[in-house]
């Protein structure tokens, strides 16, 4: 997996300048320049979530403003790009969850309830990420687990999951998710089935 990071030194220099005298013109210009280095990445990530230019522009502006307002909370424990990715991801997740973008009822985790007994148990698991991850680890292969995490915990659209996982099969992530859901449903159903008794 190859990737290219922005020059860390340049980010640090701009960040120092931005935080040196908050509110000053020099500081604001440095912050603007720093965020400007990542504006395209932010827009592309937002677009991948909402699949709509105007929606992505709105989200990207929200991300950039939010990042600017929170700049003084950046502790330097990671690269600036990582911190900005966290802000971008969090903003996108909040937007998707509150505005119901990207939601495809066929792929809602709760829809497993329709196919398995013990709906309370399934709903409880859907709310409990750790529990769901444990079941996934037991019945799904690594790629299925990753696809399920991207869809249900990261709220990414199936097309984007296909790209991130570099899936080349005809149905892409949709087929993978469908197979994973079937396995999970079966596992949950078996778990709920009363134990057989002798006699």
């Amino acid at each position, binding site marked *: 997996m190859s990737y290219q990071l922005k020059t860390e030194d340049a980010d640090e220099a701009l960040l120092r300048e931005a935080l040196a005298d908050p509110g000053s013109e020099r500081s604001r210009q440095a912050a603007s320049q720093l965020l400007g280095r990542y504006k395209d990445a932010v827009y592309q990530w937002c677009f991948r979530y909402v699949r709509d230019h105007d929606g992505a522009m709105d989200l990207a502006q929200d991300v*950039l403003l939010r990042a600017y307002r929170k700049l003084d909370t950046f502790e330097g424990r990671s690269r600036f790009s990582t911190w900005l990715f966290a802000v971008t991801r969090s903003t996108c997740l909040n937007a998707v969850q509150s505005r119901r973008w990207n939601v495809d009822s066929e792929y809602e985790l709760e829809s497993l309830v329709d196919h398995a007994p013990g709906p309370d148990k399934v709903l409880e698991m859907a709310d409990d990420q750790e529990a769901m991850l444990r079941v996934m680890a037991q019945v799904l292969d690594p790629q299925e687990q990753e696809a399920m995490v991207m869809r249900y915990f990261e709220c990414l659209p199936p097309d984007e999951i296909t790209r991130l996982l570099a899936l080349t099969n005809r149905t892409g992530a949709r087929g993978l998710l469908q197979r994973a859901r079937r396995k999970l449903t079966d596992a949950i159903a078996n778990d709920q089935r009363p134990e057989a008794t002798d006699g």
Partner: protein
Amino acid sequence: MADELDLTGLDAVAALPVDASERRAWDEDPHRRALLREYLAFVASEPAVGSRAGEASERLGAFLHENIAQPRQAPIRAGRFLRWQPALAVAAAVAAVAVGLSVWSPETEFPPALRGPAADSIVLSQPVVAGDVLVFDWTAPEVHEQFSIVFYDLELNEIHRSGPVEGGALRVSIANLPAGFSGQEVYVRVLAVEGTSVLDRSSMATVRLP
């Protein structure tokens, strides 16, 4: 939930060889593996099919310039006050034109638009607190029929939405807003909507709740 994960180590892990023990340990967790993949895609910033990268880059650059590098005070819109004071409105317009002509030259650069040409087609006047209600009014192109007012906290999380309504004004009872924002500033803007689709939007305004 997913956003509670600590992402601090992502860049360090991303820089490790895939067979490094720390990287392998990270990759064993499907959620961490997914996040690493997402982070690498984020920094790679490859244009998505259907995205308008060039336009977005230009407009976001202008947005940063106007809102961070060279922020200006929120423009005073020709809203309620000038509507009721036609003489003042005319005088203000004449003065503005006179000043404009006196400083204009062919080389003058116009400030970049915040959201492109159509962005300010909806203009929200400064909201007014009147007793226990917030009064909003706005102007919008005639093509838009229904509008919603959206409230955001200072972290830009949506906290309330009123409407949709027809026309150019809306009174929102403060009692309908979520608790905990009394005395605080919030952002607001007006959206032109049709069903669940957002057709256009105004710039943000701020209002301090009583």
